[in-house]
């Protein structure tokens, strides 16, 4: 009996994909998905993809049940019995939850935002070799001899040729009994892209601003991780001084005080020098701020670091300016003035609110760098 479930399943998945694509903008700005993120997949709630009928509404109807209880007692809503086609028994519409791998999600994102695939800087992928013992061979070095299998073969031969004596169970393996472990070489990808996230956590960056940064970074991450076999992430927060933190802290910290953007850039520069050789790594720098730098001098300093060290080393430097109530937004203008259109390694975007995240993603990743 042949089965065709695989193709039906694929048709269904295709429909699901279409639905996700349609709803993608809403997902991007709502942040629903981040909470549902597992290690390799995301659970996405979708309205049930159902075929409509002339049918009774479900929820408000009553029905007949069996059990104890007084009039007025609450009835627990069990799941409807499978196959029970009675109107009163279906307890509300369940929304459909589909598991989508991050890979697939990124593909959908790429299709929807028409993102180009990233051109590797021309460096070879870094790969590590790993040896795994997976098989058995008849030849091999004695050091890899598989004792148990060898013994089994010898025993089998002894029994079948009638030489086996249970009273005196001596088994002498011959050459043809010997079995050896064999290995295969696997290429393991090694991280070859690094993202350095930098965020301004000065007093003027509120919770909503940070949420926007978080959402944006999630999608940047999702996309970049499908483009590279391995991805390293570093997080820097700064006000007047900069420090490296872990991911949790990055999104949670609220500091007050002034802003010296150059401090973050200097730290990033140090990081690159120490751990990420630009000749081997694809380096991404994302900086989010409300654009309120402390002084013109510091801004000049920033430009110098960017021009001299960071930009030559990086694949992409992206600056996202999050609008806040206090920020002047000056830094974006300064960057624009300084760099103009001269370098295609720089992308600048203003993220006014959550709805603007989609456009920011497009600007950041649209260059295929």
């Amino acid at each position, binding site marked *: 009996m042949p089965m065709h479930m695989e193709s*039906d399943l694929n048709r269904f998945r295709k429909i699901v994909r279409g639905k996700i694509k349609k709803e993608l903008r809403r997902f991007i700005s709502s942040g629903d998905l981040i909470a549902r993120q597992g290690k390799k997949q995301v659970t996405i709630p979708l309205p049930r993809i159902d075929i409509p009928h*002339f*049918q009774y509404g479900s929820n408000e109807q009553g029905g*007949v*049940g069996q059990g104890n209880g007084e009039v007025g007692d609450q009835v627990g*809503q069990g799941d409807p019995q499978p196959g029970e086609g009675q109107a009163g028994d279906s307890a509300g519409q369940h929304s459909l939850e589909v598991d989508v791998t991050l890979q697939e999600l990124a593909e959908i994102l790429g299709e929807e935002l028409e993102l180009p695939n990233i051109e590797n800087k021309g460096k070879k992928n870094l790969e590590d070799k790993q040896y795994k013992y997976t098989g058995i061979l008849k030849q091999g070095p004695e050091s890899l001899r598989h004792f148990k299998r060898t013994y089994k073969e010898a025993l089998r031969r002894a029994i079948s040729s009638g030489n086996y004596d249970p009273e005196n169970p001596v088994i002498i393996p011959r050459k043809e009994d010997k079995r050896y472990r064999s290995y295969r070489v696997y290429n393991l990808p090694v991280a070859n892209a690094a993202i350095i996230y930098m965020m301004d956590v000065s007093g003027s960056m509120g919770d909503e601003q940070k949420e926007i940064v978080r959402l944006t970074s999630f999608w940047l991450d999702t996309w970049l991780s499908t483009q590279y076999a391995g991805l390293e992430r570093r997080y820097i927060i700064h006000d007047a001084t900069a420090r490296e933190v872990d991911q949790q802290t990055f999104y949670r910290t609220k500091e007050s005080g002034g802003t010296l953007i150059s401090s973050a850039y200097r730290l990033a520069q140090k990081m690159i020098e120490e751990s990420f050789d630009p000749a081997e790594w694809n380096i991404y720098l994302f900086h989010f701020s409300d654009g309120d730098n402390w002084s013109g001098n510091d801004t000049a300093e920033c430009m110098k670091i960017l021009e001299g060290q960071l930009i030559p080393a990086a694949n992409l430097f992206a600056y996202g300016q999050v609008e806040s109530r206090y920020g002047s937004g000056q830094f974006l203008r300064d960057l624009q003035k300084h760099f103009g259109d001269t370098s295609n390694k720089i992308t600048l975007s203003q993220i006014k609110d959550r709805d603007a995240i989609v456009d920011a993603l497009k600007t950041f990743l649209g260059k295929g760098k």
Partner: protein
Amino acid sequence: MHGYNTQLTPELAEVAARLADAARAAGLDFFDTIFELVDYKQLNEIAAYGGFPTRYPHWRWGMEYERLSKSYTYGLSIIYEMVINNDPCYAYLLRANDMVYQKTVIAHVYGHCDFFKNNYWFSKTNRKMLNQMANHAVLMRKFIDEVGQDEVESFIDTCLSLENLIDIHSPFKAQPKKNEDQDEYGRPKQPSKIKAKSYMDNYINPAEFMEYQRRKQAEEAEKVKGFPENPERDVLKFLIDHAPMSSWEKRVLGIIRDESYYFAPQAQTKILNEGWATYWHSKMMTQIAPLHESEIIDYCDHFAGVVASHPGGLNPYKLGVELLRHIERRWDRGQFGIDYLHCDDPKTRSEWNKNLGLGKQKLLEVRRIHNDITFIDEFLDEDFCHESKMFLYDYDRRSNRHVISSRDFREIKQRLLQQLTNFGQPIIRVVDGNFRNRGELLLTHSHEGADLKHDATLETLKNLHRIWKRPVHIDTLFEEVKRRISYDGTNHQIEKI
């Protein structure tokens, strides 16, 4: 299936044969039953296909499969038994189940097979449905090759949206005989003549009179008649006969209709059918071919799961088996007839015993002629209602919950019957296929207390329009006002009527 053996193990085959003999000896009469031993993945696949190994390609099988696999993975539900109405019957056993479970399922399956074969409501179903389904699949694939998968699949979606618009009683209605001299409405084509010898004909049936007759008939025909003449429950048939569809579309809709009719009796007899199978597996496992003592605890555990009552839902297994046992007891003790029904004294009633022993005979009769509605209508009495603790629940808007609203026998029975009417589907008829004399289609919904689900109704109208290709309307009661909901191809319109 998938290259490996789905035959029963010798041990299971022996059990199946032994139980079959025992069941036949006990009075069951069923088609030969072929069991297949499958793993949970295959079982989920088959279940997603509605029990059939081959169905036409469609995404919703995939959706169902994913749902089943997920609930299996999370341990939310396992499929208890699966058997299809076919000659021979096919049934599936889950490889991983223990022996007690297998025995129980086999006995349960024989109950179903007996029901399929003997119940009147199944008598018109195609007993070679396994082949038919495979043929449908071949046809659909042919259409897919001709016009493309997207096109066919989306048309299947459209048809499925209307699949419940059938007349469950139509298989039992005699087809009106076609008369050569009559037109499609049963009127004579020629004006009737008075019999006369040929030379007298011109005098007895003068030409003017014949002409007059002809004219009168033509006028009559003008006046006629609704189209369809009487409101038509089998909306799908009406569409196949009259909607402007290409030939492959007609065939597809025909396939969907066939399958709908095939599955309808199962929805119509859910309680009775499951009750019957449960009654028999319990009887076989404990009396006819009793389990070993060491197996009884496991069996009881399974059985308790099968007849567990779910809060807020009605378990058809439980209701069915309890009502059948109630009937058996009543007929064994002679608790029927005018004297018993008129007896008001609870003590006399409960001690009523004429030792007639007619229970088994009565049960066989019940399984032969009843469906859920008639079963409940005839046998659900006040005693049973109280004994089995039935209640009515309703939605409480204030607390946003369902609460028990009554334990009154009459109300409970009425609601139950109402829900079973037309296998739980709204009753919808075609009343006019040339509405407003503009070829529009008018349906009516007989409101039975519950409104149609509004958003689904709007979507379904769209699908109906896709087939009818002219504006479509449905008259229904919505929020206690009579309304006509229309779709003209671009917009929906709702008006009071």
